[in-house]
């Protein structure tokens, strides 16, 4: 679990560079809150808090949720998210190992449905808007009414709302687009990809789910690219480097508790997340869809497990020589 926390650092670093210290403040505030909630929940459940707090799982949950939250979110938004994640996503099911859904994504979806406005206010990236300092970040968190930041539609929003422009024109007309995808976002995704690759190298999780997800997302995008017409769903590279793609591929769907458990199962799980992610992005009501795609597939994980059992020793069909 500590390794997972370490591996988020490059992504957090790039987020902070492009969008300012808001994410860091979220993570610190959310982390403290999560620890306090975990401690109380363990006490209420009559478990030894000291022993269970050492597994770092609650910090992983809170950090992942806070990375996904918009920077400069008000305190009550972070609090509601952490409460949903830790209590509703985890402890009501019996704590670590027993939660059928990814707790961070439970928290995220509760917020996304309840507070769509706050959840879609993303700070404009460095170069397109002023980046707040630490003092302003704290104001945004603690006294949200007196904070006024510069928010801007994200590239995924722009693409979803595109009516009639060719993709090239859309890129040229919107300052948010960078070299491959959105300014800032492309580097955020590359940083999470790097962190994830390191975790695979360390053997923390296997490559199956992330690779399958990125493969099907790329495949769907290639099919829906429509050579960049006004109907285009965006290129594979755009989808890989936009929104929460890499973060989701390496830090969300790799959660072993709520995902499929065999390697074959992980391939199926990841592939289906990729397909759903694309479908919701281009045809759904939300610009990004990692959380929904993951939660829906969490439902399906036990079912996937039933049909992806590896062939046990001695159970291979015997080849017959006489045929």
């Amino acid at each position: 679990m500590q390794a997972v926390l370490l591996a988020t650092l490059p992504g957090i670093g790039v987020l902070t560079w492009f969008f300012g210290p808001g994410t860091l403040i979220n993570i610190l505030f959310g982390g403290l809150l999560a620890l306090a909630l975990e401690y109380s929940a363990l006490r209420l459940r009559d478990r030894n808090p000291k022993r269970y707090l050492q597994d770092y799982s609650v910090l992983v949950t809170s950090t992942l949720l806070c990375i996904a939250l918009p920077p400069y979110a008000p305190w009550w938004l972070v609090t509601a998210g952490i409460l949903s994640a830790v209590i509703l996503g985890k402890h009501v099911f019996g704590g670590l190992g027993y939660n059928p859904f990814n707790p961070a994504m439970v928290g995220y979806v509760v917020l996304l449905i309840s507070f769509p406005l706050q959840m879609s206010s993303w700070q404009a990236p460095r170069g397109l808007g002023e980046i707040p300092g630490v003092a302003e970040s704290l104001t945004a968190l603690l006294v949200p009414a007196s904070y006024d930041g510069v928010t801007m539609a994200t590239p995924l929003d722009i693409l979803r709302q595109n009516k009639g422009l060719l993709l090239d024109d859309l890129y040229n007309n919107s300052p948010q687009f960078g070299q491959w995808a959105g300014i800032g976002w492309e580097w955020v995704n590359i940083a999470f990809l790097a962190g994830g690759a390191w975790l695979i190298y360390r053997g923390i999780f296997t490559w199956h789910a992330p690779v399958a997800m990125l493969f099907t997302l790329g495949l769907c995008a290639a099919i829906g690219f429509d050579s960049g017409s006004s109907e285009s769903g965006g290129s594979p590279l755009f989808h890989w480097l936009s929104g929460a793609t890499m973060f989701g591929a390496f830090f969300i769907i790799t959660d072993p508790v709520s995902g499929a458990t065999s390697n074959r199962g992980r391939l199926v799980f990841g592939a289906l997340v990729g397909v759903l992610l694309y479908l919701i992005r281009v045809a759904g009501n939300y610009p990004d869809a990692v959380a929904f795609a993951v939660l829906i597939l969490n439902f399906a994980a036990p079912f996937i497990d039933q049909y992806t059992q590896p062939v046990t020793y001695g159970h291979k069909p015997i080849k017959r020589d006489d045929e």
Partner: protein
Amino acid sequence: MNTFFNIHGGIHPEEEKHLSNPGTVLDAGLPQSLVLPLSQHIGKPSSLCVKPGDYVLGGQLLAEADGMVSVPLHAPTSGTVIAIEPRPVPHPSALDNLCLELACDGEDRWIEYRGCEDWRTETPESLISRISAAGIAGMGGAGFPTAVKLMARERLPLTTLIINGTECEPYITADDTLMQVDAAGIVEGAQILARILAVEDILLAVEDNKPAALAAMRKAAETAGEHCKVMTFPTKYPSGGEKQLIEILTGQQVPAGGLPADLGIVCQNPGTAVAARDAVCHGKPLTDRIVTLTGRALMRPGNYRTRLGTPIEHLLTVAGFDPSQNRRLIHGGPMMGFALESAAVPIVKTTNCILVPTEQELPTPPDAQACIRCGLCAEACPASLLPQQLYWYARAKDQEQLERHHLADCIECGACSWVCPSHIPLVQYYRAAKGMIRESKAEKVRSDRSRDRFEAREARLEQEAIAREAQRAARRAAAEKKAAAGGADDPVAAAIARAKAKKESAGNEESGS
């Protein structure tokens, strides 16, 4: 290097084999008394042929094989039988079992035994009977009666004998040592076994972490012709599992629920091969074996030639045991062995190692944490099972899912528990679940049987009722026939007439008064 095939999973724990200095055999000496369990093998316990007070010589028969799947037991030295009673034996259940205690007289006098002149001219049947009479049971750990295993050729066509000198379990070097000191004996034993099985190919399998044993075996195999080959392959636990070794050497998997013989293969342990050679060539019964005494709580670890029945406390004294350093005694190795409740238990035919680790060396496992389904266990499982799923189903006692996930194919090697980051003792769950399934199957057999009995009884009662009814009907028919033939003869009609007459006469008296 020969070709070999990769198996799924496996782990690389610290080997720790150097500790017991493989290649040198030390003498464990003669204890004051020996405790010989009557069940040191799989199958029925041997049946006693001595009684308390009897004086016996070394090599003398103490107990005979009881039925087909059983082996005889011989005295490992001379002395007096002083007790026949339940004693603690090396078994995970820690239950007592019937044992014979032999007070050694220290003279170590032996009966004379003689082998055959030339095994090459003996019939397989006579060779099997010699092995059977010597009380040999698989010395690798399972303890299946060797003679019974050798009869596999009657049922299936066999091609290959594998001598399993893999010894992949950490710490243990008993087979390694035997291969170094008596490679010729192993090869000759293997040839005898091959003759019995009527197989041509002999594969001597040695993991590549035993260069000295490998060299010795290669040298000995040179004399045995081109069909006797030494096979080596990279060290990995549990390559020495019978099924795993067969896949490594042949690329084939033993079908689930089947035996190696289904592939034309029989596996034997090097110790078993030497014991068979001794039985056939010298007529010597199995009364001792090499036991690895190891662990950092021993001052003189090593491989000791030990008489069967030697109490472990005697061995601990011989090997320089430091009780302040140790809290656990393990029968077998760190992966598949089990903790002993007491040092009073004896060495048996299947004891290859007694591990006496310090707490630092083999720490008591920390409390288990929650399973997060990380899947490391599935990566390590040599049987390609999903241990994480089996764990849930074992806890839920979900028999149907346990069977669907092939619990029965778990070889209990412990690789899953070893890699588990949450320190869950997975294998123990599987053992318990297997026991539960066994019991419920036995229960089902019992209930089926009582249902059958009940139904048979019902059917019988019904049959009897029908038969009685038929009899009654027959009698009635006969009586009616008779009545029809002559009314006076009908007893019922006569009785009715009598009653009527009586009533009438009574009525007359009444009216007259």
